[in-house]
């Protein structure tokens, strides 16, 4: 009998090996993270690479987990919002800036924004608002109108003057 389930495989998620059992060959990483590994911080949005709610890091780069065939991520370092958060439950500087600026309403897009923004500000210290708008083009928010999100990311991107 033909089966489309793959043999068990292991994904390296947030620094830990996680066993995936009985997944279909066509399952995307978003679905495996949420429904097989219980990591529901990564959100399910448009499922075609438009909204960025499902953004995770693979080997440090932001990608849409909905467009990634999960089994092709074997051997890669996957970081989700759960792994981005400090283990003691505190917030990162970027997250504190989101709180301070009120950069969320319903919060559904926030994990994706945090994952995109954290990668962006690492590559673009002291980014301008214009640069942030272009860099975060892959994340949609339907509540805030973006102004507060951009302001929060801009503050988080500020590098204190070394002199």
């Amino acid at each position: 009998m033909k089966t489309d389930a793959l043999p068990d495989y292991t994904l390296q998620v947030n620094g830990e090996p996680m066993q995936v059992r009985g997944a279909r060959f066509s399952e995307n990483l978003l679905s495996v993270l949420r429904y097989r590994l219980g990591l529901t911080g990564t959100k399910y949005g448009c499922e075609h690479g438009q909204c960025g709610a499902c953004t995770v890091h693979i080997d440090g780069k932001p990608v849409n987990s909905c467009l990634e065939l999960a089994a092709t991520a074997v051997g890669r370092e996957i970081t989700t919002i759960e792994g981005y958060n400090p283990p003691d439950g505190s917030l990162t500087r970027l997250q504190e800036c989101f709180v301070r600026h009120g950069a969320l309403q319903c919060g559904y897009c926030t994990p994706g924004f945090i994952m995109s923004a954290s990668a962006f500000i690492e590559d673009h210290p002291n980014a301008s608002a214009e640069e942030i708008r272009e860099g975060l083009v892959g994340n949609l928010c339907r509540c805030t109108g973006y102004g507060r999100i951009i302001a929060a990311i801009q503050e988080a991107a500020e590098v204190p003057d070394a002199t």
Partner: protein
Amino acid sequence: MILDTPELAVVESIAEALNAKRSRPFARFVSGGTELVADQNLGIVCPEGYISLRYVSEMTRVRVAEDRVEIGAGCTIAELLEEPLATALPLLAKAARAFGTRQVRNRGTIGGNIASGLPDRTLTPCLLVLDATVTLESGNGTRTVPVRELLVGPGITSIDPAELVTSVTIPRVAGFQDYRMVGPRNAQFYVTASIALVIDPSDRDVRVALGNCAPTAIRIPEAEAFALGAVDWDTSTLAESAAVEFGRLVGEYCDPPEDSAASAGYRRHAATVMARRLIRLGFESLSR
């Protein structure tokens, strides 16, 4: 081979990819997944298997020579924005900035954007004005084809299902080169209409191509021929009336689709305006 199952093969070489295709003719080649997996998620396609090309290192090589650049089909769009490609191929770097999102650029590949064959993809008009050629490999051998011969119709190419796009060769051009598009947002998965223009004063050449203004991305030879005759190459200038006529010809000789994104008339108008503005900008920057 990294993974070898009946429905999913994750291969590491072109030879493995072609072997995997022979034993799984039903399987689709996939690399970035930004088009195929998106279509699967939306229920537009339902592949019975995949052959993932993500880890084929032969297909991620880049060779920059004095007169041409060879890019492996597996190179990502993000790599077009980085060195050495950003300097070697300025037109593609400009187009890449308007291509999808950061996340999509980290995954979408040059080969995939070509093999898609859709008229609204970003790279094809650019590859047309650069006279790029594509190398295809299959069990029957290797062939090299100009991009314009690959494009047959909307989403239809002359690539055989058993063939794999392995690399793209792009002649380097001097002079002005730029890309413009109109669309609902920078990150939308399609462009409403787009244009690529090259003005090469050393070869006295003007080349223009449109995206999503015909069943495939197309060059507009009528507008190119007009521009060649209208340019004063000694001063690298073009009269304003000639820029207007160039735009009019670009609009006249395209054949835009009519769909939920825009009417044919809107696309024709957009092509006319973008062509006029871009050729004006080109000659302004050359005469500076």
